[in-house]
């Protein structure tokens, strides 16, 4: 269909056409997803590559100052009359060298130590993270021992790994500054060659409030993110390849070491029951996410339709009643539900009072009741939210769509399936996928209600029947102290969420129409 055909359609037909186009586009979207992942890595490598563009030619065409700045940072700027800038570059280089010699190299050398003997009779370990220096007398080669004369000095593997990652990050940052230094030297050289004055220091500083304002805005958040998000994530990814668990815990003066893919092997293909538990939890996580997402979504829309039906009165009352339940903090309502559904709780009191037998809603070992209960309670928690969101959307549907449908003889059910539902589904698809990913990560509902339990036979590593991957990750880290297995689960959750979120981001209006208003 070309544009003329499209332009001649009525509003109703246009919307129907667009909705049809959306569904026809789904296979394309999946292909696009693969392209996005490829593009992402491409963009990272191009950014790195961009740093090297002209690296050689700048050196070739550079004067003595520019050439010197390839070794002594800031030399070019200083020889091109930009003293303040030159001194800053030089200071950065000196600081980096001091940092590396007093700190960085120490931890790089400790990241893979061979022949480390913990003295616990298990013999020397290869690939340990950190050294053990035996006490004087026990090992004469190690020499000086500070503090105690009897106990060996054991490096804290956590600190070694942390500082190693920190050294990596500092090195990458320094490298960026280094490239900027060569560019800056060459730029000022070119200005002088063209007979102009190099940019003054204060003008350049002023530029950080204008053309380079993005650097000013992003520098503080980036540093915070680097230290408290990126560094921990890289650290945790490394942990997935180590032996860090309760037997090798630096907090208990132990050392851990690299084990390669052992932990992944234990999660995916162990005989000890871990992989069996993982399989069960993975299946339940997906089942939970599907039920929790769609039950809330469909029933929430039905509720919104009932409240917004033209002939229904007291709309404000119905809406407010449900919004109140959504407004009460979630952990409060969840804990109240926990008390209500308690095995000796009020609901069971009523059931036994009516002559039934009490149901252990949250702790039944059979496996059905706890799972059923968390899904139902999640509906109680989530339906008002969907109602709130889809109410607004329902009012946005053009009235003439229904008008023309009625004239064509469509009944209420047909109007719902042909107009209302496709329209809402079209607008809320990104929301639906975000909710799905959110449910995979839904820690609160599970943890506040059942704490992941009950824990029958067939579940190892502290897992229980209602545990999701994320609650299991929490238990592995906090209760079981199997930090390495926790890290593996974290990576798996990341992979699942990444696939989901990339589809969302791809389809979402925000990313497509980013420039629409520009």
């Amino acid at each position: 269909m070309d544009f003329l055909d499209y332009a001649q359609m009525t509003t109703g037909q246009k919307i129907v056409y667009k909705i049809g186009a959306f569904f026809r586009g789904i296979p394309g979207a999946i292909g696009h997803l693969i392209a996005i992942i490829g593009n992402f890595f491409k963009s990272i490598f191009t950014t790195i590559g961009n740093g090297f563009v002209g690296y050689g030619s700048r050196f070739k065409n550079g004067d003595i100052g520019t050439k010197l700045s390839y070794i002594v940072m800031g030399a070019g700027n200083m020889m091109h009359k930009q003293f303040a800038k030159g001194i800053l570059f030089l200071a950065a280089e000196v600081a980096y060298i001091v940092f590396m010699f007093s700190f960085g190299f120490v931890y790089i050398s400790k990241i893979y130590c061979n022949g480390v003997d913990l003295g616990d009779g298990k013999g020397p370990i290869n690939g340990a993270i950190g050294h053990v220096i035996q006490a004087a007398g026990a090992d004469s080669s190690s020499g000086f021992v500070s503090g105690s004369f009897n106990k060996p000095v054991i490096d804290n593997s956590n600190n070694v790994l942390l500082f190693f990652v920190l050294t990596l990050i500092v090195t990458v940052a320094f490298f960026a500054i280094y490239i900027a230094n060569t560019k800056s030297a060459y730029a000022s050289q070119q200005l002088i060659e063209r007979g102009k004055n190099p940019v003054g220091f204060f003008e350049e500083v002023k530029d950080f409030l204008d053309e380079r304002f993005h650097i000013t805005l992003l520098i503080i958040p980036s540093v915070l993110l680097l230290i408290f998000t990126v560094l921990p994530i890289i650290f945790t990814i490394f942990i997935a390849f180590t032996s860090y668990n309760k037997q090798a815990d630096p907090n208990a003066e132990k050392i851990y070491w690299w084990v390669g893919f052992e932990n992944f092997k234990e999660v995916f293909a162990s005989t000890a029951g871990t992989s069996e538990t993982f399989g069960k939890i993975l299946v339940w996580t997906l089942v939970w996410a599907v039920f929790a997402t769609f039950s809330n979504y469909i029933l929430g829309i039905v509720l919104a339709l009932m409240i917004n039906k033209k002939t229904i009165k007291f709309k404000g009352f119905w809406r407010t009643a449900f919004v109140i339940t959504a407004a009460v903090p979630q952990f409060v309502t969840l804990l109240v539900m926990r008390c209500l559904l308690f095995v000796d709780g009020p609901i069971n009191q009523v059931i036994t009072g009516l002559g039934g037998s009490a149901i252990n809603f949250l702790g039944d070992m059979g496996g059905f009741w706890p799972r059923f209960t968390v899904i139902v309670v999640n509906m109680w928690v989530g339906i008002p939210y969907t109602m709130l969101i889809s109410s607004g959307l329902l009012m946005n549907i053009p009235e003439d769509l229904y008008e023309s449908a009625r004239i064509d003889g469509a009944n209420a059910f047909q109007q719902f399936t042909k107009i209302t539902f496709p329209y809402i589904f079209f607008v809320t698809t990104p929301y639906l996928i975000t909710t799905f990913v959110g449910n995979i990560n839904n820690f609160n509902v599970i943890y506040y209600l059942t704490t992941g339990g009950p824990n029958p036979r067939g579940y190892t590593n502290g897992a229980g029947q209602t545990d999701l991957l994320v609650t299991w990750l929490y238990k592995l880290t906090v209760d079981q102290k199997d930090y390495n297995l926790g890290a593996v689960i974290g990576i798996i959750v990341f992979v699942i969420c990444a696939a989901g979120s990339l589809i969302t981001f791809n389809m979402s209006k925000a990313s497509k129409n980013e420039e629409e208003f520009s």
Partner: protein
Amino acid sequence: MTNSNIGTMKTGYAQKRKAADIAIYIILSVMVVIWLFPIFWLVARSFDSDKVVAADHIIPRSWTLDNYIGLFSGDSEYSKWLLNTLIVAICSCVVSTLIILMISYAFSRLRFKSRKTFLNLGLILGMFPGFMSMTATYAIMSLFGLNKSLLGLIIVYAAGAGLGYQVSKGFFDTIPRSLDEAAKIDGATKNQIFWRIILPLSKPIVVYTALTTFLSPWGDYIFVNYFMKDETENWTIALGLYNMVVGNNITEQFTTFCAGAVLIAIPITILFIIMQRFYVAGVTGGAVKG
């Protein structure tokens, strides 16, 4: 077709419609009862002098304010938790809002090299489970001596907030670019455009960001539990209330829990009801107007 025929058709249609409406009224009423019952139960039991969870009554036989008084007297640490949560919420709200606005403004209104790379990196980082790297964060905090302290908690929340820029970026995207350009022609720097033009136009999103960042520490259990462990005096409200109803504590402290929960639920509920339209606009990416 005669007039009388049309008349009977009309009444038939009206009757059918009425029956449907009555059915809807019944369904809605039942649902409202189900949805409001737990909240009603919570409020009622908070005034009950009978401490048993499974009491055989909903409306208290003897009303009392003892549960509320108990929160603030004796060895109860409730007021301490309340104060802690308030401090953490206010500080992390101020810092996080600033960070989020700065990031989203830079990504939305400014065009620079490697912008796409940073956007993608932000997206990727946001997909790791937030508490997956908790062990490392805790180790870093220990190095600074900030583990088991409220300051450490504030830093963790504020640093994590940086990744929640999507909603406000979406909002900034909708402000016409011609405004920036006009100001630029008048000689305004990008710094001035941010503070004097864009921010005043963005009150709704500033309110939304501030409210969401203020509310999130109230419900957080994961980080508080891991950071504070047994340091009960540094707990926040969610952890404190959770511990009142877990295990055997529930038999002793159930009605105290109800009172504590009601007290903090009131202000938060009011806040949410006020900001619900911002919430809807945020979730649907501005697809809903109003």
